[in-house]
């Protein structure tokens, strides 16, 4: 058990964390490197603020577009933190989705606070409820509240979504086996974490000690079987996530900022214009009868009206 625990909590955990960071960056770069696309914005676009779309104005091309960071951040935070659209348009799913996402956010905050408290431990500051420093006491209780709260919320949300996927006929129709695997993994992640907290590590001192060991590369062994299970779930989660549609947190950035809210206009002599001019020289291989064979986009368009007329 101890060698398994050591392997999972040590080398595998390092690998999984590095793999996850690498794959997240790679996914981000993969999308960022895709060519610019044609406009496909959807309104309202929050950063346009109360003024709304510039298309509502005469000679809009000469008007500096309005950009309200406040309205964009407001919309983003409502969507990211509260899953606003699901709340309005699909409250049934929101009942599961909101606690699940709250669990993930609280869990991430727990990890940050846990890391800080582990650094404190490494620095010789004991983190406990009885610490003399208010900040340290805050850290101690912050770890407990975010951890326990996050795990409970995440588990509850995952279970609600699982029940919906099984019991709701409409959802079941679309649910592929991967949907159930994803939820099973979330239940494992939050369930094992909650169990470890309840039955083995109520102050999170064991896991803090383990994180301190990881931070100092001392490769600690893990004593509790429940914590081994908890760490196993983290490794599984980090290794699986990049291959799943749960990476939508990366996709969502591009959806909103590069598609739905992308209202950037083409400007003369801009990088965008240069890029598009390059794309127009890509050779296309579509093979329907109305497509000119082996032509670039420019070739397809050149003198098109008269040539289309000649064809018939």
């Amino acid at each position, binding site marked *: 058990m101890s060698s398994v625990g050591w392997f999972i909590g040590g080398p595998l955990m390092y690998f999984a964390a590095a793999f996850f960071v690498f794959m997240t960056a790679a996914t981000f770069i993969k999308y960022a490197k895709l060519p610019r696309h044609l406009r496909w914005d959807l*309104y309202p676009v929050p950063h346009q603020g109360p003024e709304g779309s510039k298309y509502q104005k*005469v000679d809009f091309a000469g008007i500096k577009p309005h950009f309200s960071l406040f309205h964009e951040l407001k919309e983003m935070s409502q969507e990211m933190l509260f899953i606003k659209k699901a709340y309005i348009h699909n409250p049934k799913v929101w009942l599961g989705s909101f606690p699940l996402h709250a669990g993930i956010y609280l869990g991430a905050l727990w990890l940050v606070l846990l890391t800080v408290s582990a650094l404190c431990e490494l620095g010789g500051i004991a983190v406990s409820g009885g610490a003399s420093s208010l900040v340290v006491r805050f850290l101690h209780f912050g770890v407990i509240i975010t951890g326990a709260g996050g795990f409970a919320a995440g588990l509850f949300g995952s279970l609600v979504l699982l029940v919906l996927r099984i019991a709701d006929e409409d959802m079941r129709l679309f649910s592929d086996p991967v949907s159930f695997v994803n939820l099973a993994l979330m239940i494992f992640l939050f369930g094992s974490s909650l169990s470890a907290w309840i039955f083995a590590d109520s102050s999170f001192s064991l896991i803090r000690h383990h994180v301190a060991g990881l931070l100092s590369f001392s490769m600690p062994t893990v004593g509790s079987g429940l914590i081994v299970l908890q760490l196993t779930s983290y490794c599984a989660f980090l290794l699986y996530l990049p291959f799943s*549609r749960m990476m939508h947190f990366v996709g969502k950035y591009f959806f909103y900022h590069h598609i739905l809210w992308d209202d950037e206009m083409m400007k003369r002599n801009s990088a965008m214009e240069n890029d598009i001019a390059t794309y127009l020289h890509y050779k296309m291989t579509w093979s329907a009868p109305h497509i000119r064979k082996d032509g670039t986009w420019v070739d397809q368009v050149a003198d098109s*009206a008269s040539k289309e007329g000649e064809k018939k």
Partner: protein
Amino acid sequence: MKKTTRRVPIKDFGSATDVLSPLEPGDIELIHGEDKPPKFREMKPETKEKYDFSLDGISALNLPIPKTKEEEEAIVNGFLRGIEKLFQKENNWTFLMPTTLSNEYCMQCNTCNEACPIYTESGRMDIYKPNYRPEVLRRIIKRYFSKSGKLLRKWAGADLDLNWRVVYRLAELVYRCSLCRRCASVCPIGVDNALISRELRKVFSQEMGIAPENVHKSGTVQHMKTGSTTGMTSASFKDNIEFIEDMIEEKIGRRITIPVDKKDADILLLHNAGEYMAWPENPAAFAILFEAAGLSWTLSSEQMGYEGVNYGVWYDDVQFARIAFAQIQAAKNLGVKKIVIGECGHATKGFITIADRVLVGDAAIPREACLPLLEQIVLSGKIKFDPMKNNFPVTLHDPCNMVRLMGIISPQRNILKHIMPEGQFREMPDAGTNNYCCGGGSGFAIMNSQNFPDWRNNVACRMKARQVLEAFKDVLDPSIPKYYCAPCSNCKGAARDSMMEHFGFRKKYNIIYGGLVELMVNAMVDIPKPFISWEEEF
């Protein structure tokens, strides 16, 4: 909420049933005044033997049923080739990012379903769910293009085997989505199922040569061949302008010379040419307003200069780009400062936003919607309006292309405030960016193959009809004349065929339809008699 009991699992999409999910008229919720379930034309057996009706009993595409194994294989192979190209930057840089993301990140939460008027008004048929067709695509991609799908098959969600029926049903199914993007506007992730429909339309058109005849052959091809999707040549365009000048003289008591091919004007006004043929009052009203406001403007009689539509927006990037460039060339030849697009939603969006990143260099002539300019005319005080001349109930349709897809919301409302007495204008439910499609979007208004019009009128247009009745619910008495204002040609086409002819709103409730400029001219102090008449057909 009505639930369907006729489930169509995605793995069964290619099953060898005659009709996978037939429309059940009894499942369709009736609108006020409808006393029996809607009717769908029964096709003759010989027609059904020849053409594919196997999705829902409707044919939008007239697809001939393959007769040999080779034909079947060619359909499947062509489709697979097209899907591969859809994800290649050389072939699809235009929409590669949106397509890739929407393909990869649907969480199958179904939030989009209730946002779709076609799904809800069909009696909630599974196959019409906005996420159904993208899910079919995903499973095909998993099955034929992913290692996990090839290896794990149904365990990786790759449980749909491709055959000609899958391809043809999918081709039909992408023409049961009006691309209104209401589904995308409610998706918590930002997934755009309407875009997937459009991209699949593109695969069918650009790779397999499959598209509705009215959209492609007598649409974009005819447009480039004759100058207009209506077949109107430059010479007949000029005749039409003369006719409109006569009509103006008759209506307002004085003749206006409509400027055609005027060099170096400030504005080239580009109408949907359907207006000249079906609703000449609309270009006439524009001419009256522009003349009264003293604008420097012109129409073009050059081939590709008098037709504003661009059906390529709905199904084909190549046709779209060809038309957009040709229209720009016509504007350049006249030396105008900008192009203003008349009351046509898809033309406005297509030319202003979508073409924005195709028209590089000196092709980037400024292009604007007409609504802000019309608002400016009203607010400038150059024309005197008497709101009491429009003393009848009016409701306003928000064309998806101008409103949800461009954010043009307030100009038309500001105009109505100034040209109508208080209390006569009423918003529809879900007005603004949350609006519903007229039912004619993405080509539906002009598609007339087989029994498709029955589907359009009974299913796609039903929500709009319901909304109009809701807006006028306190004045439904036919003794009160009412005006459904739809500042978009396709939306008016849908209103004519569905609301007026199919649902009989004119007869039952004395509702007529028309554009915004007609209402503006109707309120002009200088115009001696009403421009809008409930006695004449619009």
